């Protein structure tokens, strides 16, 4: 079975020949080790750092070669910055992106992460020109990846959830404060960012993708970051708009979130087509989710990232077998870690996961 067909069969809740694999991302040190290539330019897991197309094309090539070498059937690819854009370099060494998020560099992961925004008040946001989804160059990365993968791999467009954008643009402290003090502003801000995503999803018909994945966490270890009521009234209303646009495109919509999603699951299961992470260290039980929602939700996960960092290869292989045992039967399951291959994950453990899936992941699943 062709790798893309394997994923498409899985997305149809059918059993393919073998469980497909993916990862939402692999940190640069691992990609460099696996491909022998060097990543040029700045990179971030949450945003675009520039529209230097030469660097971006090299990065796409590296991701493609890495995923191909690993035999991953599904390759997620992010949205690009528009043509001619570059991040604003600040005097303190930080960088501001096109969403007004300020990023700093983490030497261990070799990536840039947002830690605050430029918005001191709701007025600042009202006056801010949000990025233009229709700008030229937005689909550069996906177009590049489409040319590389052809019909051999499944391709997913990776977008970011409005909830995550707002937490990062405002900081959690201001975001929460404005939920209390300016609830209508937060409602409208969420809608504006969802508008961006809806337009981006609509544009995906220019290039053709097999799946849309939305990144950005809703929960932390203890549960949802804000009340289920806020999710219901603000976040999910706008999530549904994005999902519907993906369905109009003829593709499914997977929601990523770390943390404990159990309080949100009943409603989330009505909206999205699948979930990624299913973070076991936060109390998510992939077997339980499969039994309750497996006919509706495609599941992607869930060997703990903590395990990749701290456990032995034998322990990781055992966890991998457990995932297959609990989630793979009946199809609708794509294997991955519970987040991504962090720089601090032992590469030997990551590869042990892959090897274990190849050994035990053939259908019908026979893991004892």
């Amino acid at each position, binding site marked *: 079975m062709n790798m893309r067909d394997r994923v498409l069969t899985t997305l149809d809740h059918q059993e393919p020949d073998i469980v497909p694999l993916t990862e939402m991302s692999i940190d640069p040190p691992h990609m460099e080790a696996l491909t022998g290539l060097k990543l040029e330019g700045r990179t971030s897991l949450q945003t675009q750092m520039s529209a230097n197309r030469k660097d971006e094309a090299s990065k796409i090539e590296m991701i493609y070669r890495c995923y191909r070498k690993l035999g991953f059937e599904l390759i997620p690819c992010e949205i690009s910055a528009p043509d001619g854009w570059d991040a604003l370099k600040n005097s303190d060494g930080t960088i501001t992106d096109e969403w007004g998020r300020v990023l*700093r560099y*983490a*030497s*261990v*992961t070799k990536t840039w*992460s947002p*830690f605050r925004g430029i918005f001191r008040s709701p007025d600042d946001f009202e006056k801010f020109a949000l990025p233009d989804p229709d700008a030229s160059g937005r689909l550069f990365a996906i177009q590049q990846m489409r040319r590389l993968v052809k019909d051999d791999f499944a391709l997913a467009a990776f977008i970011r959830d409005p909830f995550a954008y707002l937490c990062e643009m405002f*900081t*959690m*402290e201001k975001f*929460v*404060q404005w*939920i*209390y*003090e300016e609830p209508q502003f937060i409602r409208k801000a969420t809608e504006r960012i969802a508008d961006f995503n809806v337009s981006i999803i609509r544009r995906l018909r220019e290039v053709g993708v097999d799946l849309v994945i939305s990144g950005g966490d809703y929960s*932390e*270890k*203890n*549960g*949802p*970051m*804000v*009340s289920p009521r*806020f999710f219901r009234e603000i976040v999910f209303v706008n999530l549904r708009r994005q999902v519907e646009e993906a369905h109009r495109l003829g593709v499914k919509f997977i929601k990523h979130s770390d943390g404990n999603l159990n*309080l949100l699951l009943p409603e989330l299961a009505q909206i999205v087509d699948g979930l990624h992470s299913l973070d076991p*260290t936060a109390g998510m039980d992939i077997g339980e989710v499969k039994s309750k929602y497996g006919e509706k939700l495609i599941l992607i996960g869930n060997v703990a*990232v*903590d395990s990749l*960092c*701290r456990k032995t290869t034998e322990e990781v292989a055992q966890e991998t077998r457990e995932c297959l045992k609990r989630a793979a039967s009946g199809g609708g399951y794509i294997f991955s870690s519970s987040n991504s291959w*962090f*720089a*601090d*994950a032992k590469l030997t453990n990551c590869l042990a996961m892959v090897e274990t899936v190849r050994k035990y992941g053939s259908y019908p699943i026979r893991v004892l």
Partner: protein
Amino acid sequence: MSQKEIALKGVKDAFAEVVGTDEAEKRAQTALKSSVSPTEIIQGLREGLDIVGQKYEAQEYFLSEVIMAAVMAEKVIALLRPSFAISRTKALDRIVIGTVRGDIHDIGKNLVSTMLISAGFDIIDIGVDVPAEDFLEAMRKNYPKIVGLSCLLTSGIEEMTRVVDTVHGAGPRSGVKVLVGGRPISKQFADSIGADGYAANAVEAMKAAKDLLP
């Protein structure tokens, strides 16, 4: 109940119910006018935060309520500050806090800092991505009683171990205690690396820090 008792209860309830900053400040002002001392107001605030912590554990409240309660606490403490002096040289109650090297997340650290300030501690925040040597330097400069370590990423675990060893290696006479917390950290892990204290969340950190002091 007397006017004073009603006003003090109002402060406690403001925090327990996470009413927002304006209302919290209003109730603190009312309490001051009703002859409630700043110290008593802070005590009411802490009792309210304890309830926030309990409701958070029970999933009646979420991270948003904990954050909002911390924002309210910052505002009320700032309001009360002119009413009593907090000496920054009072080393007995000083805590150096930072996110360990390799991790640039600060939300947990910032929440804990606010809670600890409301609990009466003097906080020296040395930021994020802090190597062990910088924790040691901050200790030498500020003479804290406690060093607080935060991390969100699993990658911070090994670094946390290194900092604990460095702090304790500064000499048994230094007497500095190490308090740890963060998403990948468990009580079991904290014990295994020789940390003196552990807090599962920002509200627990207040009690954990007090428990570390003689």
